[in-house]
């Protein structure tokens, strides 16, 4: 079967065969870069459309259904519109920072794509500190947000950016602790090791109680990290603070908008990798026949299926729950989630040492 | 308390008031100089306890104004109408907004539309119209050739 692994291997061997090592590496960089940008663009299009359709069906209406069959070209039309819109820089704004912020946010999102395994053997860079790399890089996004809020020269953007910054920084702790619980089980930060360790079952089943608790905390924390409802007060408290990206229009706004959705994709991909086995098919212990059947489905389908299920879950949250007030949000993190995650960490360690997991 | 009992008690309490026959409720006309004291009496006398001011308005009778206050008691469920005559040349009245907080807005509205000044009001400004509006629209002699179309 033509797997993505084969394709990358054949391209690599052809390149190294035809050109000298340095040039081949350079061309590889180019290919990977273009691939990442294309992935970004496609993901953005797909996710925005998915959000609108999911929202519509939850709200008993149809959603976009005019542009293209079933409305599939809607996002294309939207992106075109944003591209030709005028990009205003407000008077008195810090021009350099104002223009830099959206690019910073996008670059960070793209960087975090590096270690994520989209299929068996198909990832950009299997760094030995994979999980740490993703967590570290995504925490840089706070800088982009604060930068945009400050450089807008707008009281309300600044307020929104500060709130958003406080929110992201707080919830990173819980997310980090949840991730560490799985690392304790696997014993390695390298993502391919983590996926391989789920050969005989996904961590959410193998790790039973502590993994389950850690998954719940992880989902709550990443919803807050990506500024999604019910934690979206920074962008939806529209009577006062219209968020840190008020003053942006045109392509720069499109970049912010896009990076929010790609961030959701990244955290869901991380969740799928850590808890649901990444590209690993569903294997149940020693049921070899069942496992063989599961193996027929290509690994990229497994990965995308899991990630998109988690994305659907996060979208479901948005259209079901009301919004939290800012002090309730921070309360939730510091008084509830953090103690629970610390306790869970302890529990995980004890269980890992005792070997009481599958 | 029904209307007759009310008339009796009010007759004793407020000698300067005259009962006017006008609607299904007891209507008392009082002089404006005693307005504030009578208001306090109505509010704080046990047995009367008129704690709910549900309508405060003004009628322009071309020769004089009449302020109309509608009270009711949430405890005894009786109602009362108080009327105060004001002269055109001296449209002033003591505020009752310290006794019934709802009067703050109602008195501002009466000031805005009729020009009656309420002495002691914490914040007497126009309510609906802009600060620089000239004239008192609901008065019968209000002329506005630009905005008003007379039928």
């Amino acid at each position, binding site marked *: 079967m033509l797997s993505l692994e084969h394709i990358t291997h054949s391209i690599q061997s052809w390149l190294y065969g035809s050109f000298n090592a340095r040039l081949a590496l350079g061309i590889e960089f180019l290919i990977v870069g273009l691939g990442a940008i294309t992935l970004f663009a496609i993901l953005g299009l797909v996710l925005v459309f998915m959000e609108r359709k999911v*929202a519509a069906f*939850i*709200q*008993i*209406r149809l959603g976009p259904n005019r542009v293209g069959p079933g409305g599939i070209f809607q996002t294309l039309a939207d992106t075109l519109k944003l591209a030709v819109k005028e990009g205003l820089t407000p008077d008195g704004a810090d021009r350099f920072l104002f223009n830099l912020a959206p690019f910073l946010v996008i670059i960070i999102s793209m960087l975090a794509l590096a270690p994520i395994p989209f299929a068996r053997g198909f990832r950009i860079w299997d760094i030995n500190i994979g999980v740490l790399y993703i967590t570290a890089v995504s925490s840089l996004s706070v800088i982009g947000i604060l930068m945009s809020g400050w450089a807008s020269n707008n*009281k309300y953007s600044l307020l929104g950016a500060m709130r958003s910054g406080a929110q992201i920084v707080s919830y990173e702790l819980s997310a980090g602790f949840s991730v560490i619980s799985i690392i304790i089980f696997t014993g390695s930060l390298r993502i391919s090791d983590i996926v391989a360790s789920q050969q005989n079952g996904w961590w959410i089943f193998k790790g039973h109680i502590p993994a389950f608790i850690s998954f719940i905390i992880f989902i709550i924390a990443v919803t807050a990290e990506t500024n999604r*409802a*019910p934690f*979206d*007060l920074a962008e*939806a*408290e*529209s*009577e*006062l603070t219209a968020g840190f990206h008020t003053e942006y229009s045109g392509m720069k706004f499109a970049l912010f908008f896009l990076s929010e959705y790609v961030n959701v994709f990244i955290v869901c991909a991380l969740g799928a990798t850590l808890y649901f086995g990444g590209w690993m098919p569903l294997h149940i212990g020693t049921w070899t026949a069942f496992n063989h059947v599961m193996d027929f489905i290509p690994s990229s389908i497994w990965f995308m299926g899991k990630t998109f299920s988690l994305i659907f879950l996060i979208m479901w949250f948005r*259209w*079901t*729950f*009301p*919004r*939290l*007030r*800012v*002090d*309730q949000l921070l309360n939730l993190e510091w008084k509830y989630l953090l103690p629970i995650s610390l306790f869970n960490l302890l529990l995980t360690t004890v269980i890992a040492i005792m070997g009481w997991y599958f | 308390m029904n209307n007759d009992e009310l008339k009796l008690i009010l007759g004793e309490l407020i000698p300067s008031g005259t009962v006017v026959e*006008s*609607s299904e*409720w007891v209507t008392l006309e009082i002089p404006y100089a005693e307005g504030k004291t009578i208001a306090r009496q109505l509010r704080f006398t046990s047995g009367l306890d008129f*704690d*709910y*001011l*549900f*309508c405060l*308005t003004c*009628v*322009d009778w071309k020769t004089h104004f009449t302020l*109309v206050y*509608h009270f009711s008691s*949430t405890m005894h*469920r009786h109602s009362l109408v108080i009327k105060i005559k004001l002269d055109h040349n001296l449209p002033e009245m003591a505020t009752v907004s310290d006794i*019934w*907080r*709802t009067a*703050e*807005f*109602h008195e501002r*509205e009466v000031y805005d*539309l009729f020009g009656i000044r309420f002495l002691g009001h914490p914040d007497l400004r*126009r*309510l*609906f*119209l*802009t*600060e*620089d509006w000239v004239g008192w*629209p*609901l008065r019968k002699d209000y002329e506005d050739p630009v905005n008003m179309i*007379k*039928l």
Partner: protein
Amino acid sequence: MFEEVGTTAEGDLVINVGPQHPSTHGVLHLIITLTGETIKNVEPHLGYIHRSIEKMCESLTYRQFIYVTSRMDYLSSHINNHGCALCVEKGLQIEIPPRAKVIRVLMDELTRLASHQLWWAAMGMDIGALTPFFHAFREREAINDIMEETCGARLTMNYMVPGGVMVDLHPDFQKKVKAFIVLFKSKIDEYDELLTNNTIFQNRMRGVGYLSKADAISYGCTGPTARGSGLSCDIRKLYPYEIYDQLKFDEITEVDGDCFARYMVRLKEMKQSLSIIEQLIDNIPSGDFQAKTKAVLKLPKGEFYSRIETARGEFGVFIVSEGGTTPYRIKFRSPGFSNLSALNHMAKGHKIGDLVAIMGTLDLVIPDIDR
């Protein structure tokens, strides 16, 4: 005209909310003084939709002025019209036929239900839950369709006349209302599941915007706003009109006085309205739908006050008549006017997000306040 928006001497922030804003209840302009995130003072600026209705009515006849009130509180248009018609009938001292009474009460209760549904939708939207909006509007469409068949309009139904109603009920009215009752009974439990029992929602509403009973009385609050603080003020029970004294329904009061109490009052009122409609729908008496009145109405000299319970509270119509064909002075006592005056008192010391919750539970319709 407006306060300088900027900073006060103590370094507090002064900001504008409105008159155009997304959690819109009409054109309400609030000037808020903030210390950090806490509200120090809320000052409403009114008049953006002041149309001097009271002055206009002085040149309209007694048949014409009734329909201007539809444009005041457009969500309770039947009830407003009903209030005006009651006042004129009080002046003319005419008896309304029983069929007209029942039709009027049915229309009132349907309107109350529709108004509360819209309130619930907007409440959810203000708090951030965007889905209940669509659910509530779907049920409201059923009521709008019923109204459209009989009255000809979906929002400002000019249906009440002094003496009764303008035209008879549509032949399908009973059938459609019965279908609606069955539909809504199942949905109202959904409303509870979707919003009321949600922890996030309760955290946003409990303990927020406390209004004590004494303050509610002093500020002249009425309707569900006052009933949420324990004040029993339902005009349908205290001063019954039409056939309300013959109907079985409860007056809902809650004692907590916070936003959640006001929310629960309205939710339970929806159920009560439904039960009233159920009691009446099979027992509409036959006969005239309108009493015989002259074409040109002249009220005798005097003053007449009638009060009616709209979805927001007590709506009072005060007519001063000099014996002519047009009133000498009309005063409309609108419920939102007094409820709004309590906003500053309720919002002091709370956060900005709480202000939105409080305004939602007050259920303000600004054209009603501004007249």
